[in-house]
């Protein structure tokens, strides 16, 4: 298995919206270099990205506002290149170079 340093990186853009940006240094757009393989040697998927963001990018220690029971918290939409992740295979989707992943918190006010 390749060591962490040798693993090639996939450059992607990760966006947060609907208030989620508050958990990520109050920045709406982040350029992320995601290891192309998980520590187990599997291709990087959305599930891996979510875990990676929780360990490396989140600035607020209240990670339960982003992830609950190992999955994205209810009330957060995940969009892969502007399309609902459901159209792309949800957590199983394999990340490609240049992908745009958007996390949006659903709003209820009015």
């Amino acid at each position, binding site marked *: 298995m390749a060591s962490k340093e040798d693993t090639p990186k996939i450059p992607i853009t990760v966006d947060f*919206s*609907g*208030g989620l940006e508050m958990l990520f240094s*109050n920045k*709406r757009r982040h350029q992320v270099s995601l290891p192309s393989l998980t520590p187990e040697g599997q291709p990087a998927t959305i599930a891996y990205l979510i875990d990676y963001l929780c360990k490396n990018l989140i600035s*607020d*220690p*209240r990670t339960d*506002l982003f992830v*609950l029971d190992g999955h994205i*918290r*209810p*009330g*957060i*939409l995940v*969009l892969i290149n*502007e*399309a*609902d992740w*459901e*159209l792309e295979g949800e957590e199983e989707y394999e990340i490609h170079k240049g992908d745009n992943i*958007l996390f*949006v*918190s*659903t*709003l*209820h*006010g*009015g």
Partner: protein
Amino acid sequence: MQPTPTNNGGLDDGLQSQNGHDRRLTDEEFDRYSRQMIVPGMGKEGQLRLINSKILIIGAGGLGCPAAQYVAGAGVGTIGIVDDDVVETSNLHRQVGHATSRIGMKKVDSLITHLQNLNPLPHYIAHSYPISARNGADIIQNYDLVMDCTDNPATRYLISDLCVVLQKPLVSAASVQKSGQLIVLNCPPTPQGLMDKKYPPCYRCCFPKPPPPTSFVSCGEAGIMGPVVGMMGVAQAGEAIKILASGLHLSSPSDPEVERNLIQPTLLIYSYDLESAVGPYSFRALKMGSRKKKCFACGENSPENLSLEGIKNGIPNYDTFCAAPIAKVSLPQQDRIPAAEYHDKKQKGELPAHILIDTREKEHFSFGSIDGAVNYPFGKLLMKAALIKRDGGDGDEILSPISARTQAKKDDDGKDDDTPIFVVCRRGLDSQETVEKLKELGVDHGGKRKIMDIIGGMKAWKEKVDPSFPYI
């Protein structure tokens, strides 16, 4: 399935004969609607369809006001509005269908007053009571299209479920602080359970589970920029007018014309940035999925889950599904002090030297605070608490952002700083949670240090101590 209408060239012919809408416009109508009727695709037929349509606007607030204005201006023939609130001064920066002269009036009556002035031709119906599982179907069934302009998850799921069963298109928008969202659902209206091709999604298809109540914020707490919610309300009116003028609400998804008209379900999101004011506005149109097989409300087995009868009788239970936010902590009496008592004792010099923590957001704090209070926003405090828990370490560290003294004193003589702490917030909930959090971290030094909650927050302070206090 309905029979396929014969003549379907576009907005300007379509379903008119089916609905007997072929009449002359009155001079007043002709004059009033001329500028929109000459827009390609609208025409006299589109206008007549609007005039013969009935729209229900649920919520007469930040979304409902701008939405209602454009729907009324465009000449939708019957406009029902549901809301049980009254107009308050703090509504007026965004709820532009109300007026300073109508503060205290029922929102529904205030908004209809405004709309009648704008356009006296439509028939306006006031529903000045809240929509509920009991009355919802009876209200909605009389209309052609519903606009969800409400402000909480439980009502949003209820409205969507009713629209699925009653087969009404739903134009749904939401907005808080600096963000907005908009989506058209159930359009064209499709019977529950049909799965043989791509059908439009309902609210549950897009948002199957509500957010946990702790992550839910309202406009009252988080604030809201008027133009952001206004933009979403206007966009809602735009979508509703499009659907009604084209007759899409009267069609069935099997109509060939409808198939041609079906577009990808789209969620529009708007993010507005006050921190980088010169940056680009951000509108994004996101592709959503169609009806989901597993959807509780409209999917394959949905008729078993959801019926009008069931909804009326409390199945499903929307309140438990969304678990409305309630006070999670209630401290024992000895850890609490009424605002007035705190004030009196302080005046008489009966309180020992203490730290007074105000956990409101810094924007709230900036308008005024109790003498000697230090600002430590609740979110920051929770963040710090989570950090200490994660990394291990002295619980007293939680006070480091507001008091350098605590650590220093401990270092000098090796003794804990037992200066009592009082906590105040906006309405008295966060302060209780703060007291509990501080005790959990051991900041009370096993009971040697008093940590007290000021009951009812700055709201109580204004009511009981200082009526001139600038409370938001």
